[in-house]
């Protein structure tokens, strides 16, 4: 019997009071660029390029393979890598798993069972490391300073003779701080340690030059760059050659590193999205940076606003702020006309604050009341102005309800 939805509690509606919410959650995902969607649709149906790219015995298969290889060039070009260094995966989560497990398992054969990462990494890295701990690996979790940054000296002092992998993200997804992957990479290379970087939040937002960087493995996602969900890539450095053990077996696709029939339409979408990102890197950045300044200036007018994370080494699109005197879940609900993220997850009795913000040393109240506004290519001034208007209406209202005598 079908579940009766008529008595269901009121949920987070897509339309509040007839108005579509303003989308300010580009760090979670982005809409697919129209130009990307057009290319993808060409790879699905009977009269399109639908054949299996591995079917090189016929022209239709070779056509599909041609598009896959073109996309590989497009992805490689955004980050100045060689096309042969790009491995298709299902997304950054799989790339992180493949990179860290793949390198750690190989290191274990040489009795290297130590991994260094950071407490504010994405769960795809943290949970992978936790799994490796269960398998007997030893993991050091570095704690960033108040700015959110990990210093080179922290990595230097954490590394041991049996360290096989260091994994540090390029840009943090909650606060947008940029890590010094150039310096950390240099150090890791000098010690023969595999250096992995999760670049899901930085590709297409910051220039990345993998010829210049000493990075062994780098994870990418298409859907953060106006491409489709369900597709990503892992850069595997060819010189010096980085080796990883596969975690998915069967068919030997992608040089045996990641088996499975290639999703032509997804790959073509990622290629086109990365190509557009390369062409629009500067103009996207300038557009987003201008809107971020406008948003921050407007938000500050309610007073008691704290920016979380380093404000100099940061990506343009992420603005993470805490509001004094307002609880996070209520704030998120009060701002339901805006599609934003909260650092709080007050569904548990302990009202656990954002693990990232707590790692930065924010007091619980401020960590609980953080909101991540993230802007993107399709954000507009009216979007930003509307967000400011809603915040200016709701934050003082909630503050007044809970006004405490000090």
């Amino acid at each position, binding site marked *: 019997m079908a579940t009766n939805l008529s008595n269901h*509690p*009121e*949920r*987070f509606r897509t339309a509040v009071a007839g108005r579509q919410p303003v989308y300010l959650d580009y760090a*979670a995902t982005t809409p697919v660029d129209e130009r990307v969607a057009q290319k993808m649709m060409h790879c699905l149906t009977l009269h399109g390029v639908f054949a299996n790219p591995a079917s090189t015995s016929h022209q239709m298969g070779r056509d599909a393979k041609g598009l896959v290889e073109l996309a590989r060039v497009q992805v490689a070009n955004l980050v100045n890598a060689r096309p042969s260094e790009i491995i298709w995966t299902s997304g950054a989560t799989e790339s992180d798993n493949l990179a860290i497990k793949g390198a750690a398992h190989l290191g274990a054969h040489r009795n290297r069972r130590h991994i260094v990462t950071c407490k504010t990494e994405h769960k795809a890295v943290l949970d992978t490391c936790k799994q490796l701990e269960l398998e007997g690996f030893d993991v050091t979790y570095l704690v960033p300073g108040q700015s959110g940054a990990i210093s080179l000296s922290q990595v230097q002092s954490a590394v041991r003779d049996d360290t096989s992998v260091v994994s540090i993200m390029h840009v943090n997804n*909650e606060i947008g701080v940029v890590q010094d992957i150039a310096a950390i990479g240099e150090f890791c290379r000098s010690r023969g340690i595999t250096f992995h970087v999760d670049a899901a939040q930085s590709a297409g937002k910051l220039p990345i030059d993998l010829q210049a960087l000493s990075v062994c493995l780098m994870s990418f996602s298409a859907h953060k760059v106006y491409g489709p969900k369900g597709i990503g890539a892992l850069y595997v450095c060819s010189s010096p050659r980085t080796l990883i053990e596969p975690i998915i077996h069967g068919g030997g696709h992608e040089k045996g590193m990641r088996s499975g029939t290639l999703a032509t339409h997804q790959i073509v979408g990622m290629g086109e999205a990365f190509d557009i990102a390369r062409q629009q890197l500067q103009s996207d950045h300038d557009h987003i940076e201008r809107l971020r300044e406008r948003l921050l200036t407007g938000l500050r007018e309610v007073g008691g606003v704290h920016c979380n994370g380093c404000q100099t080494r940061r990506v343009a699109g992420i603005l993470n702020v805490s509001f004094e*005197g307002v*609880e*996070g*879940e*209520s704030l*998120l*609900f*009060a701002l*339901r006309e805006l599609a934003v*993220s*909260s*650092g*709080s*997850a*007050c*569904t*548990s*009795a302990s*009202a656990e604050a*954002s693990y990232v913000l707590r790692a930065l040393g924010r*007091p*619980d*109240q401020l960590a*609980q009341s953080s909101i*991540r506004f993230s802007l993107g290519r399709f954000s507009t001034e009216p979007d930003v102005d509307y967000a400011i208007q809603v915040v200016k209406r709701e934050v003082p209202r*909630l503050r*007044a*309800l*809970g*006004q*405490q*005598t000090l």
Partner: protein
Amino acid sequence: MSTVLEYNKVVVDHFNQPRNAAGGPGADYVCGEGGSADNGAWMEFQLKLDKRRIQQARFRAYGCPHTIALASWLTDRLVGEQLLEDHVLDKKEVADVLGLPAEKMRSVLIAEDALRDCADKLSGAQA
């Protein structure tokens, strides 16, 4: 960073239009508080009493929508009730009306703490 936002009509109504919000300290009321902002939920009731009978109630609250809605709803619900030293709220009624999930039941305990604090203050004032 995911938060499941699921509130019933009563919660949404009281959250959008709180009843009897105090807006500040209540000098001529019996006031009592429970919980703390640092722990994510704080509630204060300001009561006008005829002996122990609640004639009027106001609130201040910091917390999730359930906490704010509960405080607001109680300011209506409590009128006419007797304020008791170990005041107990009907948890089943509260959970039914506000659709409180199990993990939010601590809001009810905070409300009880605030009411018991009112009762303590009342005894202190009378002593």
